[in-house]
């Protein structure tokens, strides 16, 4: 709603001050200009940062991109000794770990949001909500060290042998669960990522569910619907855009997450058909190799990976924000 500008409306009062005391008013006007410019410059700085990130990454990545051309994103080879670099393995790792994370985190996050908005006793609503949000505040390196020392051994000893035994022999699907249980690898990274993005997805979905007008839900209950039917047929359709937005926000996090993955991915530059095998992701390749990279082409290739990551996550996050904004405008509530 474009109302009249608040400060525009005060022109008359400040004009009166100008008539009573011109010197004071002149001084005030100077301060006003300075302050206003300062806030404006700060605001523009935000745009400059994003632009600067794009330009500097492009410049840093240029030697690799011009040397390898489009082949950079389609080749699997990654050999610092012969200076041959391709991004396919990290891209594959990033996409697959994020997909695994989403497969686990989206239903779980949906369940948590559902529990918090529809089932939870009011007394527990706040503490549980805060606990979930605190999980979001735990830094990613903690998830990494926990994943490496606690989760990976558990998966290696109990979950992965079970997967290999029971799913490994099924045609087609079986390829995903072949090979020895290393503990660390694509699957473990996906599980750690799932735990990391879970709070973001749960919190966004909860906020989105809260924007559903109670009257719509009451009408559902009034028709004799069960809680689940109200959720599935009233709440979910009404907040569809927000749910997708929240999921994509989580996806953006998962794609760009570095430390949690670096600990448990195994850092192997190859594409393996098995989810249990070690792999690499864009961010963990950069984190692991950047400071040790010798040679301009090696460094440049890693920066090119960063540029790819930037482009992918920027697109996903921008889409997510656009969707959440659409919901915000429609409901007029802060989602």
């Amino acid at each position, binding site marked *: 709603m474009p109302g009249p500008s608040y400060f525009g409306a005060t022109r008359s009062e400040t004009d009166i001050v100008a008539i009573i005391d011109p010197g004071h008013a002149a001084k005030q006007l100077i301060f006003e200009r300075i302050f206003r410019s300062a806030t404006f410059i700060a605001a523009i700085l935000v745009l400059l940062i994003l632009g600067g990130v794009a330009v500097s990454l492009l410049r840093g990545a240029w030697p690799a991109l011009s040397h390898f051309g489009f082949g950079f994103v389609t080749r699997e080879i990654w050999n610092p000794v012969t200076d041959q670099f391709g991004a396919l393995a990290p891209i594959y790792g990033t996409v697959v770990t994020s997909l695994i994370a989403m497969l686990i985190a989206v239903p779980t996050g949906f369940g948590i949001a559902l529990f918090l908005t529809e089932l939870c006793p009011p007394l527990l609503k706040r503490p549980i909500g805060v606990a979930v949000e605190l999980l979001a505040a735990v830094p*990613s390196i903690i998830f990494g060290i*926990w994943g490496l*020392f606690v989760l990976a051994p558990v998966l290696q000893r109990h979950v992965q042998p079970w997967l290999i035994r029971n799913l490994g022999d099924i045609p087609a699907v079986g390829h995903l669960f072949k090979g020895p249980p290393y503990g660390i690898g694509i699957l473990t990274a996906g599980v750690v990522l799932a735990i990391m993005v879970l709070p973001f997805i749960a919190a966004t979905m909860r906020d989105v569910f809260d924007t559903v007008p109670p009257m719509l839900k009451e009408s559902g209950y009034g028709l004799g619907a069960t809680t689940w039917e109200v959720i599935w047929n009233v709440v979910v359709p009404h907040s569809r855009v927000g749910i997708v937005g929240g999921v994509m926000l989580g996806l953006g996090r998962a794609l760009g997450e*570095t430390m949690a993955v670096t600990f448990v991915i195994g850092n192997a530059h190859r594409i393996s058909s098995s989810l249990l095998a070690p792999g690499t992701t864009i961010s963990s390749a950069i984190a692991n190799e950047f400071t040790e990279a010798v040679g301009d082409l090696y460094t440049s290739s890693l920066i090119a990976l960063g540029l790819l*990551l930037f482009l992918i996550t920027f697109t996903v996050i921008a889409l997510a924000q656009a969707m959440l904004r659409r919901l915000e405008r429609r409901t007029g509530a802060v989602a």
Partner: protein
Amino acid sequence: MFRKIKNGAFLALSLIATLTGLACLAAILWTLISHGVAGLSGRIFTQMTPPPGGQGGLLNAIYGSGVMTLLGILIGSPVGVLAGTYLAEYGKNSRLSVAIRFINDVLLSAPSIVIGLFVYEIIVVRMGHFSAVAGALALAILAIPVTLRTTEDMLNLVPVGMKDSSAALGAYPWRTILSVLYPAARSGIVTGLLLAIARISGETAPLLFTSLNNQFWSTNLNAPMANLPVVIFQFALSPYKDWQDLAWAGALIITVTILILSISARVLLALLQTERGAGR
């Protein structure tokens, strides 16, 4: 009957999902405490990071983390607060503000490793070496979106009547903002600062190629500086037991600090809300 069973099944699943989430938090905290407390001792706060096999503490890393986080907040938060002020007060509905708001929300969840690469390109490459300043700058860039967002939200919560009365007294906008709006939104803005500190003090990825690490005590801002997250990263992945113990102790310190910061931010916000509620 089928509908009832289906209903019960899904509700049970949602309960299980919630318990799983809480169990994860509990498991992580439990691991941190059980491993971390064993490594905690007076040495942690009085000695430097040791070479492999030696005894030592985390003093230089704790100091470095403190310095860089503080610098990051000192550089980043004024920018965030001022930009938030612009969005909330001066350029409320302009097209530029809509764009900046959007970009800011994107930056809010942008991968921090990319910000690290950016600072590497513009600072480390130019200066020719890693430095604490570069690390602080990377952290500052990460702090801006958090403070900007909270400042704007909090300024929007200040009742319009307060702005109007200040303007009616003939105050220019800058005066109104500094003397009326900032004090009114103070606890909200402080909440934003706490959240920003919590966010950047655990960041590892952007520090890897900006501040790097330093095994020794260093107060030189123009040289590589030790910091907790990178030390944890390096020590946890090492094969040495002493280093791993130190990594766990560091992880415990960092997590406890961040949880305390996040909880105080929440408490502050809750107090603010009850205050508002009572005031009306």
